[in-house]
């Protein structure tokens, strides 16, 4: 190889090397015992709104303990990546909010403090916590990897005026009714049901509920994926068919991933919405609370053998502490503060969610229709998503497969048992 060729080769290496780039995260874990770094998830209308809501509470904590908490509100689209980077690097915040469905996945990294009996005692005791919420805080048989902070569940939101105009007197209790009502409501540029079709997480949450109702499971008892069983195929097809077959969902919803479905519901473009704690979001979009009704998510009219009476996942936000924290005692006392009766009442009232501790649940702030419906669902018909390490991968793969199926439905391609099964088989093959 001549010198010039060597030069060319080097130049090629350098040019091609421009693709190796990867983000990292800064070392912002608090070194002093008097400070903490906290990543909050986006619960309110905007990141800024969340900061305004949280800051007075953090000031209160500083007054009580002398520990200053620096908060950063992280958008949902970034949160899992940021947590992963923090887990991988051993650097980052001390205390974080996590989506409760990620509990087992993040627990598997070994980066989170496990809440054994002693740690639970340090944050106020196990008995205070709502059992369903605690069940969604880590893998079964292991100490929880997080403590429940806000509890939520899916409900059916419906536009009272649209229902009255169409002569419908009560919200649907079965999917068959929902489809039938939806057809009546889908006229004049308006649609029956709004769906967040391009958001993999939302899709996956519905995949779980529908699968339960059809008697399916996404993982077997050994934690192996069972994506393409006939039950799961029927479940996914039922959900996609609201757009593909019943045509009660605007095809545009196939590209919705930024909560446009909530906006469509708030603006009256769609008459029904399946969402968790939508109330506070609807309020910021100027939809008054008396304009919509809240009802439990429907069931199948005649469930197949093995079908379960589940109409929501146990949704919620958990609080976790990173093992790399240099201020574990401070972090635990912050978790205790955030899960205290007073803070639970203040924060959940603002966000329209439910307290994760029993002692705060009796507050009159949580007796509105929406909160009562959520409460009832959580107690009677909600089930936690599978608490297995691969859960977040399930959300991504199955949620994305559904996104592609919605895209097919929107562009007029047929959605059949075969096409659904093919997508689910593909998704399953990508697990290992």
């Amino acid at each position: 190889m001549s010198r010039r060729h060597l030069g060319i080769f080097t130049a090629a290496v350098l040019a091609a090397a421009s693709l190796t780039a990867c983000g990292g995260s800064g070392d912002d874990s608090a070194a002093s015992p008097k400070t903490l770094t906290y990543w909050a998830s986006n619960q309110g209308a905007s990141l800024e709104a969340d900061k305004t809501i949280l800051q007075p509470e953090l000031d209160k904590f500083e007054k009580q303990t002398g520990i200053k908490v620096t908060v950063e509100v992280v958008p949902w689209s970034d949160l899992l990546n940021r947590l992963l980077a923090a887990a991988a690097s051993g650097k980052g915040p001390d205390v974080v909010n996590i989506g409760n469905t990620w509990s087992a996945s993040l627990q598997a990294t070994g980066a989170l403090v496990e809440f054994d009996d002693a740690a639970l005692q340090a944050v106020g005791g196990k008995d205070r916590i709502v059992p369903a919420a605690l069940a969604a805080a880590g893998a079964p048989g292991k100490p929880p990897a997080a403590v429940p902070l806000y509890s939520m569940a899916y409900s059916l939101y419906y536009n009272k005026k649209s229902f009255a105009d169409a002569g419908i007197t009560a919200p649907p209790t079965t999917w068959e009714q929902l489809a039938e009502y939806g057809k009546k409501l889908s006229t004049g540029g308006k649609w029956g049901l709004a769906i967040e079709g391009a958001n993999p997480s939302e899709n996956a949450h519905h995949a779980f509920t529908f699968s339960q109702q059809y008697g399916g499971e996404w993982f077997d008892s050994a934690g192996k994926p069972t994506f393409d069983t006939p039950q799961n195929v029927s479940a996914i097809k039922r959900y996609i068919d609201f757009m593909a077959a019943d045509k009660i969902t605007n095809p545009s919803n196939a590209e919705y991933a930024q909560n446009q479905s909530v906006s469509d519901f708030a603006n009256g473009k769609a008459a029904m919405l399946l969402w968790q704690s939508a109330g506070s979001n609807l309020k910021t979009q100027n939809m008054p609370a008396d304009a919509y009704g809240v009802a439990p998510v429907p069931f199948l009219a005649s469930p197949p053998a093995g079908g379960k009476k589940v109409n929501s996942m146990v949704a919620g936000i958990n609080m976790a502490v990173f093992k790399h924290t240099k201020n574990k005692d401070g972090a635990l006392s912050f978790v205790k503060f955030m899960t205290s009766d007073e803070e639970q009442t203040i924060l959940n009232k603002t966000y329209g969610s439910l307290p994760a501790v029993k002692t705060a649940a009796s507050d009159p702030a949580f007796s509105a229709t929406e909160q009562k419906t959520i409460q009832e669902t959580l107690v009677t018909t909600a089930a936690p998503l599978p608490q297995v390490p691969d859960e977040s991968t399930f959300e991504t793969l199955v949620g994305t497969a559904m996104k592609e199926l919605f895209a097919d439905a929107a562009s007029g391609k047929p959605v059949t048992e075969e096409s659904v099964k093919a997508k689910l088989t593909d998704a399953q093959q990508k697990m290992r």
Partner: protein
Amino acid sequence: MATSTTAPDADRREPRAGSPARGPARRPRGPRRSLLPYLLLAPAVVLELAIHVIPMVVGVWMSLLELTQFHIRDWSTAPFIGLENYRATLDLNSAAGKELLHSFWITLAYSLLSVGFAWLLGISAAVVLQRPFRGRAILRALFLTPYALPVYAAVITWSFLLQRDTGLVNHVLVDQLGLMNERPFWLIGDNSFWSLLVVSVWRNWPFAFLCLMAGLQNVPGELYEAAAIDGAGFWRRLRSVTLPMLRPVNLVLLLVLFLWTFNDFNTPFVLFGGSAPEQADLISIHIYRSSFKTWDFGSGSAMSVALLLFLLIVSAAYLLITNRRRDDHA
């Protein structure tokens, strides 16, 4: 980065500018050679190691591990599985392998078309703006705007424009002009590829324009005069004077543009929000999804290394071929 290839080309092409500079630039021979050159080089070498070489080596190492969430916190616990990641991701009979291949073809088509159109627009604009006329400076500035805008802001704007129900594109095409009865989707389905291509060309052509405009400044006016005297028309002048004189610029420009578009992550990521539709599933997004979204950094790294090798071969072949041709010409 890739601009390092310009130096030899520029030297060789411009003897007038090159020869006076070459004498004094030659290093002093013999024992007077000091440490200074090495000191001057050191920061560049350190940065090159830190930014390119070490991450690359780490990436190759990662591709040999089963690096999932169970081991991400302490890499030393990740089992060494040799070429298993490569076997799994490059197995064209498996779902993952098929998708990677699909993604590869999409990316190749996307890069070739994007570079082609960007170059075509760039050369057209550069030639049109070569002669001074009133308003030329304004047009130049205007043409460079897409390149000057922050990529995220620009692409988010595009994603708003391309929304089916609320986007400006459909508003103009369907509501104003009535060209279509149905509102087409631009961000999902078959159209998503073309949307991505348009945004990419829109972002990249000003760079081609900038380089080619600079290149045209170096074409001596006498050549055009001589060509005009010989009776050459516009196209003939373009073919026989402009393009040959721009050859060294084009050589580098096309390679750089190709590598940039092939690796482009920002445009599809912002336009489609993390999970691109199959029809526009570029390889960078595909790798991101395979490693970050499914927490499997080993197979993500294996794909990256395979991609690196491919680009290495393409770049080396390109440079070898273009250099050989130039030698033939000389």
